[in-house]
């Protein structure tokens, strides 16, 4: 396996990595306090942000909507962003096809 380098990105999934980078940027300072994990699923120009939380409050919803709004701003009108709330849940993350986790809280903080 040849890993990407600065000179040669090899087979790195550029689009998906770009979306992840933008999603991380969109989350800065906005992650809802009860969220245990945030994942991103991309299918072409369709992006889904997955929020997993032990409980889900109105403030959490507002913060999640702010993240979606920020991500929409960063990605522009060609990309459609949606959110999916998984709450209440006990496990932080679960393996799921096509889902990339971009944030997971420490297990001893919640």
């Amino acid at each position, binding site marked *: 396996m040849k890993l990407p380098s600065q000179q040669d990105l090899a087979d790195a999934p550029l689009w998906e990595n770009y979306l992840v980078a933008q999603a991380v*940027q969109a989350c800065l*300072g*906005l992650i809802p306090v009860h969220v245990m994990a945030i994942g991103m699923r991309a299918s072409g120009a369709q992006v889904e942000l997955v929020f997993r939380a032990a409980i889900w409050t109105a403030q959490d919803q507002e913060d999640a909507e702010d993240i979606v*709004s920020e991500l*929409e701003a*960063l990605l522009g009108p060609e990309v459609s962003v949606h959110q999916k709330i998984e709450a209440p849940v006990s496990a932080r993350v679960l393996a799921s096809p096509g889902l990339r986790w971009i944030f997971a809280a420490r297990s001893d903080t919640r």
Partner: protein
Amino acid sequence: MGTADGLYNVPVTIAAIADATELAPGGVEPLLELRGWLQQHGGADTSSSDYQESVLGGTVIAALLSCRVPVGKLRLGGPNTSLAPAVPRFITTAQGVTIDRAAISRLVSLQKQGRHVLSAREYNGGSYVKSVEDAQRVLDDFHSGAAQVLGMKGNDIVVRTPNVTGINVNPGAGYPRQPTSVFFIKGTRSPSVVPYNPNWTP
């Protein structure tokens, strides 16, 4: 809330005047006189009791009482008056989405706006304006009609105003610090203003 010139152009309702009489510290006579003036000049909508317009009415009345402006010389705008062009309350975008200007609060949320003000404690690295006053100016321009409504981004209203320059921050797309006069207005009851891609099209 703006200058006296700005106040002259806000719609004032009979209901607003009625509400303001309970708040006005200077007595009701000037208010009743103003109400009569509005009725005579067709600048009042007796059917509306919208809260925001009531607040506006109170502001106008407060300005009248403090400045002692002769009522007969006022140029208050209103739904039916020909004295000043009214800003349309509803805007329908090219995509068929209708925006109700009155549904958007006239004051930015200080807490939420802080996320997009460079010097604020809440700033977290995204797009920003120089000050809360700049953000408020964008919102003022939206309400006064000075800003052009470009369309909707999800649930957010996108506007362009010539009066404020913000910075669009999108390093992932190659724009770490891009001046822009395009903004989106996020939220209704507690809105905030965020600089946006200057080349955005709906």
